[in-house]
């Protein structure tokens, strides 16, 4: 496993978020992620972990605190938001592939439209990425013709095609049948070895243990515990973490 550098990629400080109905989803959550680091966020459902990582690429807004991504301060400035989204890729629980486009076009759409790169060049890169996630032979098919595991691998390749410096994973394996979880986790592990910065919300303990540099527990909109995987799973310092681990292990 490669070691993260000291350069800070994501700096979230005391982030608070209320939904319009008054519910407070984040209550001062803080997290620092360094370049090349793989951080796994765990926690009970409703703890705000998805909401938290969705603030990192401005899919969710927040009312208090500050977030800096790759040196760009997230604010209401739309130009900043577009700049951040170009640097941050996201993989969703429900894949969210574009069903009306072929697999290849799913990958090339954003690089051509946003980065204005020539189509032929992007297609070459897309083929290489599909090769890397092991589904090059499906390039001409449509997402609806693929299995869940294949779709999620396409989604990862699609995010990578924008050449992001950070990848966010929002429960990437939760919607998959058990036998397809492994193929997706393997792809993610390969990425981790390539020192791309990754923040992963997941319940996969094995992945957290073997791939993460750091594991974070969120509960009630706050970061409760942050530790190396060994410490996190064997000797956590907080009672809340112990209770959570008792429930899932």
């Amino acid at each position, binding site marked *: 496993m490669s070691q993260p550098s000291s350069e800070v990629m994501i700096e979230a400080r005391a982030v608070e978020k209320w939904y319009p109905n008054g519910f407070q989803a984040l209550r001062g959550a803080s997290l620092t992620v360094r370049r090349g680091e793989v951080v796994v966020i765990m926690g009970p459902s409703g703890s705000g972990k998805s909401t938290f990582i969705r603030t990192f*690429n401005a*899919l969710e807004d927040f009312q208090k605190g500050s977030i800096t991504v790759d040196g760009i301060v997230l604010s209401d400035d739309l130009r900043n938001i*577009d700049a951040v*989204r*170009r640097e*941050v*890729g*996201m993989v*969703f629980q*429900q894949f*969210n*592939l*574009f*069903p*009306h486009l*072929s697999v290849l076009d799913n990958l090339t*759409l*954003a690089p051509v*439209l*946003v*980065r204005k790169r020539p189509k032929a060049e992007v297609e070459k890169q897309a083929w290489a990425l599909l090769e890397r996630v092991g589904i090059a032979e499906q390039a*001409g*098919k*449509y*997402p*609806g*013709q693929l299995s869940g595991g294949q779709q999620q691998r396409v989604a990862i390749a*699609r*995010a990578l095609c*924008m050449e992001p410096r950070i990848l966010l994973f929002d429960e990437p394996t939760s919607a998959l049948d058990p036998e397809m979880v492994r193929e997706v986790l393997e792809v993610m592990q390969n990425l981790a070895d390539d020192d791309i910065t990754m923040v992963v919300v997941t319940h996969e303990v094995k992945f957290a243990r073997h791939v993460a540099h750091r594991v974070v527990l969120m509960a009630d909109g706050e970061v409760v515990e942050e530790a190396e995987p060994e410490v996190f799973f064997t000797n956590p310092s907080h009672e809340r973490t112990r209770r959570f681990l008792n429930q899932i292990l």
Partner: protein
Amino acid sequence: MKPVLRRLRAELFATPADAVLSTGLIAVLSLAAFGFLRWAFTQAQWAVIRVNSTLFAVGRYPVEEQWRLWLLLWLLFAATGLSWGVLRSHPRPDRSGVLWPRNDRIAATLLVVLGLWRPAAMGLSLSIQARWWGLVALLLLVRWLAGRFGPRFGPLGLRLVALMWPVLYLVGMVLISGGLGLVAVSPSEWGGLLLTLLASSFAILLCFPIGVLLALGRRSDLPLLRWGSVLYIEFIRGAPLITLLFLGQNILGFLLPGGLAPDRIWRAAWVLTFFAAAYLAEAVRSGLAAVPRGQLEAARSLGLSYPKALQHVVLPQALRVALPAMVGQFISLLQDTTLLSLIGLLELLGTARTVMANPAFLGKNAEVYLTLAVLFWCCCAALGLGSRALERRLDPHAVPSAT
């Protein structure tokens, strides 16, 4: 027993009750069909259609300028053949590209039969009959050429075809109304099928973008835009088209100074457009609601701006879902053009009424109305078939067809 007979027996005469019901229905249907055919071939006097065929087709369009309409017809047939062939030679990446699938062979045969028989049955002069044969031959020839050589042009061919139709529409407008060196033919001289198709195509083309904008406005976060759209849609949908048509004829005249008020026909066409846009907006809105939220989020997270995400991700999916409802709107719009006859315009129904008022053709209502019904049915069937083909082509879940 032969399989056909066995199947007939299983489907029609399975039980005694089925047998009685089937026999009764067959008897009623054959009686009706027999009566209709006897009327159509022995009693009906189709002279009223034959003599007035030009009137039904183009109204009182000046005879010496009618070559322009023929030219437009040639262009339209060539463009149809070209699009047909190019589309067939560019199948979707996951489809097998058969150049002449069975349905295309049937359509081609049907075209030839209609093209040879119909003009003769109408008793048109030989030179005009020959023109129709030429038109059909041109369509099939271009279809064959485009299918054969289309692949050479690559995706450029598809883009050219998409560009050709709007250009052709503008060219058609110039040919029909004059200008650019052609003698002007005022809209009051247009009529018949020409006017019906012109008014409805104008309204269909323009109500589409307006309807999409209204649907987006209704879902917008900006209150002014949202309430404006809601107010417009609900007001238009709450008023009968005929009142709006009368309103349009009167109000536009008062509102705008004399020279600026568009001609009566254009006023009516604009009213049709704005009317249809309100209904179309609701169809598009249902399509937008069917696209999962995650689609926009995925597009945005890839860095696409909101308009780009709409254009490339959300709208293509929403419009495909809304397509059947939208085409339903277009079909009723086409039929609504008959209301123009009530404000004194001579579209198909208006022309028909003037023909029936002619003492020479008194009492020939059945022939005229039947012809009208068939003409409208053909136009609507074309719209419906086209939309279903488009739906299949755009449907990412459709099983690739082998034939």
